[in-house]
């Protein structure tokens, strides 16, 4: 069996952080979509690198290509027609960047200290898995951060996609030998959720005249 190249995986993982940051911080929703597309490609590359351990992952590369690289960006692109500029978020760029660095450092420290408890791969793969987990959790938290602090509903959906990417990355790191049926189920669900959310956001634009979630105030308590 060939080895997984650690350098390659490190590079991919770090690029994932950059694409997440770009997706969260870009004020133009189409640019954010492109950043997300970049991240989706990186995930495919990462899965491909891992597939030397488990051939079943090749199946997931295909699924990820269809769902993350083609369908989700397509849906996002379609829904941002005529509404490319994001509603101004609560937290500005400078503070956001500082938060990101702090977040990354914390996550890296935390997962490095505890990942050993969960990682079930062999010795030499542990360090890769640790790095991956740190990255996965950071992407996850960045997604969550985007959902919590962005007013634009489409940006929240992009945040949700990041969140899911984080989980999927951790899934591959923690359980590289997982069955393909489970993977297909998880991957399909994200696409359907994104589609339905954007469909409802279309309705919201129609009725409220905006996708600003702060304006959704029909329901209180």
């Amino acid at each position: 069996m060939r080895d997984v190249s650690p350098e390659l995986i490190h590079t991919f993982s770090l690029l994932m952080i950059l694409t997440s940051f770009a997706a969260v911080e870009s004020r133009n929703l189409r640019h954010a979509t492109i950043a997300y597309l970049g991240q989706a490609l990186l995930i495919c590359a990462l899965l491909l690198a891992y597939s030397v351990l488990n051939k079943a992952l090749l199946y997931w590369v295909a699924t990820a290509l269809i769902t993350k690289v083609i369908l989700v960006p397509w849906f996002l692109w379609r829904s941002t027609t005529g509404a490319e500029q994001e509603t101004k978020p609560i937290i500005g760029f400078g503070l956001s960047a500082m938060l990101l660095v702090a977040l990354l450092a914390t996550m890296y420290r935390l997962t490095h200290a505890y990942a050993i408890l969960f990682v079930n791969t062999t010795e030499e793969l542990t360090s890769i898995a640790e790095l991956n987990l740190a990255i996965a959790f950071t992407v996850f938290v960045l997604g969550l951060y985007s959902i919590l602090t962005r007013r634009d509903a489409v940006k929240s959906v992009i945040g949700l996609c990041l969140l899911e990417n984080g989980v999927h990355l951790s899934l591959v790191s923690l359980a590289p030998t997982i069955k393909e049926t489970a993977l297909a189920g998880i991957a399909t669900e994200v696409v359907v959720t994104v589609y339905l959310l954007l469909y409802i956001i279309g309705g919201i634009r129609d009725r409220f005249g905006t996708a600003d979630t702060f304006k959704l105030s029909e329901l209180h308590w």
Partner: protein
Amino acid sequence: MPIESTSILPLLAVGIPGIAGTLIFALGRFTVWLREILALLGTLGALVASILIGIHTVKGYAPTAVGRQFYADPLSALLVVLVSLIALLATVYSLKYMRHTVADSGLPHTTTIGRLTAYYGWLMLFISTMMWACLSNNIIMLYVAVEASTITSGLLVAFYWDKRSLEAGYKYLMLLTVGITFSLFGCVLVYATGANILGGSRGLLLSELKAVASQFPTMTAILASAFLIVGFGTKAGVAPFHPWLPDAHAEAPTPVSALLSGVMLKVAIYAMVRTISLFYPSFPPIATFALALGVFTLVIGDIMAVAQDDLKRMLAYSSVSQIGYVLMGFGIGTQLGIYAGLFHLANHALAKALLFLAAGAVIYSSGLRRLSELGGLAKRMPVTSFCFFVGALAVAGVPPFNGFQSKLALFVAGGNAGNWWAVVIGTGASLVTLLVLLKAAKTVFWGQLPTAFEKTIALKEAPLSVLIPMVLLSILCIVIGVYPKAVYIPLKSAASVVQTISSPVTSVASGDRADVHMGALEKHR
């Protein structure tokens, strides 16, 4: 141990409503009645399959399918019977109710037909995914099924497509998907660690994980449980993760509200108990955490219910509170606690579905839903009024209704386990529930009719297909309350499959994984 036997029943229970839903989407546009017939057949088929599963499991058999990916024990059986029963009643209720509300919405006729096709189609898929969640033996698929039930119900919540329902639908899909993602993390952690001990894909099967949960490193068990509690708890409406719940329950069409509150919350709490109880014997503090969260939830739900003017929102907050009681039972963690939790789960499913359906009948006939606008309906709607009172008293836990029996069991279990603080808070909150629900019932059905209705005869009792499901649920609430022994055996066998905090810690000889992990951690530091 039950005798496992390969059976087609689990597949039928999931497949029949699933196929009915697909057929409705494909054929529903041709005739008006076809989708309704298909929906009725789909839910009826699911109920028959579920009852057969129930009979098998009580006899000591465990029907399995697709290489043990589907596995029905008495706990699954209890849930699928509840889901399919409420689903059938909600479908019968939908027949007249949905035609009426869609006709009222002022949409063009062609759109109306499309809307109803979508309604019944999604409804069947929603039911199918809930059945799947209850029968799945694969921990990752359990997550997938629970999330699928969010997806299939998303458009049902936003069905009316007006400002309020769109906002509710957006919040519902967004908050639940984010929340439930936490449980995926939890499931992955359990699977990854389990697979390490068991080897290969056996780590995916809940029935296998039970035997090795004691060998999980403490940190993993606690972290995984925390993720599972947050994830499935969000879906179950456990406070403080409940903000989606009142919006979705209030804005969805009433039969869907009855399903959301009656069974979807139960499926989520089932998923939570199924997974975290794996760790009960070895890590009892997890149960204590669930208990504290349950008590917190029941208090929050009650406080919020007091402040509501919208009838359906008030019922929704009351559901938050009652889910707190169910979680309290599971958190007590003893055999009696689990039994009481399951008993209350079943009772609340019946009584709250009844309350939502009765509230829907009020909306159907009067077009109003604010408590401050309603009054004196008992004269014009005697059956609905009777059913609402039965539901209210049952949820509040007044004898001789079913809620009394399960709350009594809950409090006895709490006392036996020495959790007196929880019993005291639970009893107090129960009184608040009684006050809130009785006040609402009094406002809506007694007193003065709104002046707009006084002179007209337009306000009359809801049609028969709306009343029959309510009457049947009322009868069940009373029968179980008067004669609780009727459900003793299925509940007891369901409770016996859940691990308790005092279950013997089982251990499979495969090296002491926990020690290996802890050693590795020490070295790493």
